[in-house]
């Protein structure tokens, strides 16, 4: 299978302290992967490597067969920020946020091309946010806020969507509808990767899982990797109420 992300023997250090060691993972196109691990295990660093925000001290990273810097130019990877990372009072509308997905592809001086507007409208349609296009982003519900940023990722034309704790603070209904949206995008060929602490619902959402503890301990289909033994290793044995017999 063709790989959306290929990371080989990557090492990342912050101030000499290793955060990721000899990390390798190959994520196929059109898959829905969950990334789990304890706080400080290196999940967000792994995301930063995929986004090209952190340069590994050694190892190889390929995003859609491109090196990270080229992948950025092509807009291969989009991320949906954590709710608390966004200034919801910021005076921008949903439409403007989605248009920000096009900014890497526009010339700096140019105003949006008709094609850019087309992309934005289509993206809003796909996430069901057309009627909220003119809302200021703070005037949305939790689920709608996520949808707006998923639309930005689509407008960017990204192949890979990274979501960090997308369900934090969402009610069950919004969580379900966002999950449905992500599964729909996956079925259309997008590669979805989400970091989460919600181990219980993980097998219902993702088809694959990556266990992270200073490195990718294991990665593969839920059935093979989301086992009591492996998950327990990743979390120091602290796992409760998770049903592994599926």
């Amino acid at each position: 299978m063709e790989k959306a992300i290929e990371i080989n023997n990557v090492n990342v250090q912050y101030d000499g302290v290793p955060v990721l060691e000899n990390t390798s993972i190959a994520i196929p196109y059109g898959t829905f992967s969950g990334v789990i691990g304890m706080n400080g295990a290196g999940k967000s660093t792994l995301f930063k490597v995929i986004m090209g925000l952190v340069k590994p001290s050694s190892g190889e990273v390929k995003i859609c067969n491109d090196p990270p810097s080229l992948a950025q130019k092509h807009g291969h990877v989009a991320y949906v920020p954590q709710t608390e990372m966004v200034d919801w009072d910021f005076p921008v509308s949903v439409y403007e946020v989605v248009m920000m997905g096009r900014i890497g592809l526009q010339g700096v001086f140019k105003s949006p091309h008709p094609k850019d507007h087309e992309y934005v409208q289509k993206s809003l349609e796909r996430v069901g946010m057309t009627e909220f296009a003119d809302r200021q982003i703070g005037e949305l519900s939790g689920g709608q806020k996520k949808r707006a940023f998923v639309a930005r990722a689509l407008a960017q034309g990204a192949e890979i969507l990274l979501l960090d704790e997308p369900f934090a603070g969402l009610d069950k209904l919004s969580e379900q509808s966002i999950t449905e949206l992500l599964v729909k995008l996956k079925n259309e060929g997008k590669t979805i990767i989400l970091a989460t602490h919600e181990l219980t619902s993980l097998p219902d959402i993702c088809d694959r899982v990556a266990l992270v503890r200073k490195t990718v301990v294991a990665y593969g289909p839920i059935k093979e990797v989301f086992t009591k033994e492996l998950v327990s290793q990743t979390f120091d044995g602290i796992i409760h109420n998770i049903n592994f017999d599926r």
Partner: protein
Amino acid sequence: MEILQYILEPLQYPFMYKAVIVSAVVGATCAILSCFLILKGWSLLGDAISHAVLPGVVLAYIIGIPFSLGAFVSALLSVVMIGFIKTNSKIKEDAIMGIVFTTLFALGLILISSIASTVDLMHVLFGEVLGITDFAAVMTVVVLSLVSLVVLLFRKTFLVFCFDPTHAQSVGMPIKFIHYAFLVLLAITITGSLQTVGIILVIAMLITPGSTAFLLTKRFSVMIVIAVLVSVFSSVAGAYASYYIDISTGGAIVFLQGCIFLAVFTYQTVVNARSVGRLAPPKIS
């Protein structure tokens, strides 16, 4: 038309004519930058840079070069120092800014106290647009108009930079370059505004108009327009006030801007209290 006469009569004097134009351009440029500055949460950084220009100004005076040159170099030095200490220590940025700008400002005070005549330097500390020279007036108008033009041309880039720098970086925008470009534009604006409002008060020009506008709208483009209108009005009115009642121009401009902000804030608080039935002032940050 008596009011018209009050407005037009002072313009017969070249010094007043210059003062009005310079004040308006300073007001407009500061207002545009203020919209980005308050959304980015960089108000304190603006304050730091403006205080840090003092030693550069005094040194320029001693050497005998244009004080704006000294101010600009000094401003850049403060930005570099803050950035350097931040990346190489665990001290939080607000503390670093406090240390850097007070130290540089203190150095400026020491330099001032060591020279004989301080009359000219008072203009820089407190602003005196009515006494601006022809050369300084032309330079200020040209340079600040250019800054406004650049910021407006790249407004989308700067807006994404303020709103979501991680996204900007992930699509390959040169985030470090944008960061420093914005700081350089800020330093130029502060330098260009010194003659009008002075070192101590220039930060008000860079915070208040944007904040007032932010209270009034949820659209960024509208925010810029409101900020510019409020700021230009305050600046020109301040120049007239100092002509007619002989008060400090910078003081008049900044006081007026503060009053407009408070009026808008009070009005909104009252309206919100009525509509919601409780006090719920809009948040600024």
